[in-house]
């Protein structure tokens, strides 16, 4: 079966924490398909991607793969919610020319035994480009959230500023998140700040809010909303910011199962 050899495995770095079992019914050419976006010099592009599983998408793979090329001084802004599929996966590869900027505000949500992941690669190939990625993951049940962010800075790409921030919030015992920052830097005058943390809802905040009369479900909603709000904060477009937050909150409200 030559096709089988084309399916990714956990040995592939970009699929390390993925749910390979969810790929079994997937046609191998799925992994050849990319959506291409080119943003011309000085132009701005923005998009909201929502993977939230229609009724027909329960189980299996729900995936989007984008290749974005930013020309000189171009700006791209991507808001993303990954909350669908047995395996929900967003892959983004961005190539940045001089002075370009890429902004990602990403949220993963999921319970059951789902895996929801965002996998990015920033290719800083020219000097003075910047990228900023903020990903917040909220998981429950036995759900898993992953953020794999690779940053490549070539030798000539001086003055690159590439930042990553990841935080995971586990609502129940049994859920997990993984964050893998992978930095390949060949220039010497660059900034690549990255941070990752995992936690639960703050116990003292919960009691404080309860002592003011808020019932547990309202407390959870307010605290989760505050947590994922981080991912929207740097998005310049207000409509996109609100749409992302609203989609995520709707998804969270449905979380009974």
């Amino acid at each position: 079966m030559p096709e089988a050899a084309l399916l990714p495995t956990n040995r592939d770095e970009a699929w390390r924490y993925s749910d390979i079992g969810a790929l079994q019914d997937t046609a191998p050419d799925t992994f050849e398909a990319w959506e291409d976006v080119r943003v011309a010099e000085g132009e701005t592009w923005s998009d909201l991607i929502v993977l939230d599983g229609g009724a027909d998408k329960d189980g299996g793979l729900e995936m989007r793969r984008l290749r974005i090329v930013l020309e000189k001084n171009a700006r791209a802004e991507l808001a993303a919610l990954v909350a669908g599929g047995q395996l929900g996966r967003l892959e983004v590869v961005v190539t940045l020319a001089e002075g370009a900027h890429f902004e990602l505000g990403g949220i993963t949500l999921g319970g059951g035994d789902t895996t929801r992941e965002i996998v990015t690669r920033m290719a800083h190939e020219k000097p003075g480009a910047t990228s900023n990625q903020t990903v917040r993951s909220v998981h429950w049940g036995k759900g898993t959230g992953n953020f794999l962010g690779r940053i490549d800075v070539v030798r000539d790409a001086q003055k690159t500023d590439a930042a990553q921030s990841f935080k995971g919030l586990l609502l129940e015992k049994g859920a997990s998140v993984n964050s893998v920052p992978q930095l390949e830097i060949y220039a010497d005058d660059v900034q690549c700040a990255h941070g990752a943390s995992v936690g639960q809802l703050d116990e003292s905040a919960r009691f404080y809010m309860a002592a003011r009369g808020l019932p547990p479900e309202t407390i959870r909603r307010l605290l989760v909303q505050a947590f994922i709000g981080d991912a929207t904060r740097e998005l310049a477009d207000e409509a996109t910011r609100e749409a992302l937050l609203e989609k995520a909150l709707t998804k969270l409200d449905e979380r009974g199962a």
Partner: protein
Amino acid sequence: MLQIDNLHAEIASENGGGKKILDGLTLTVNAGEVHAIMGPNGAGKSTLAYVLGGRPGYEVTEGSVIFRGQDLLAMDPHERAAAGLFLGFQYPVEIPGVSNIQFLREALNAQRRARGEEAMTGGDFLKLAKEKAGLLKLDMEMLKRNVNVGFSGGEKKRAEMVQMGILDPAFAVLDETDSGLDIDALRVVGDGINAIMRNPEKGVLLITHYQRLLDVVQPDRVSILSKGRIVKTGGPELATDLEREGYDAVMADA
């Protein structure tokens, strides 16, 4: 209004088992009264406040608390609030990403719904918040910021009292509301407590370490808490005796 009878409580510890803090505490606070609780460090003052508020990890092993005719200990923390209990924190908690306005409006309306009252509109709520912030001389802009985030110690305590003003409880348990306040702020906070809670229908349990707040909020009764129980109860003069002679001397007379 509040009857605490033979209350025993312990704090759950990491390695299982509990550390006994309250050891047969009995105390009654009537409507219209401000009852001050004083006591040395480690006497159980904050534990009493947390037990009354229902904080997880504080386990009542014996005794009862009746609040306005209801079994307080049977209620969840948010139900206690809706029943009219307010707990003023010694260390108010910071909540990044949640504004004071949103927090308090949700809290007030949750309480009102629980009592079968109608929710307050946004406009009416803002008017109320503005009035109470003014009472505590807290800039309204502070209420638009995230709950207690970036507030100084004194601002946090004033914000606690603004919350109390907005929620308008029947009974307040105030845990060292005076700590971290300078003289001027102490006066503002004390006047605030008087304005909000001095009422024949209301009661206050004022937990404090020092006499100075009691100069502004004059208590009707003063009790000394030591080793988890009330060892002495008296009138306001008890607080001045304590200030003058210290805990050891006053308790030696007990």
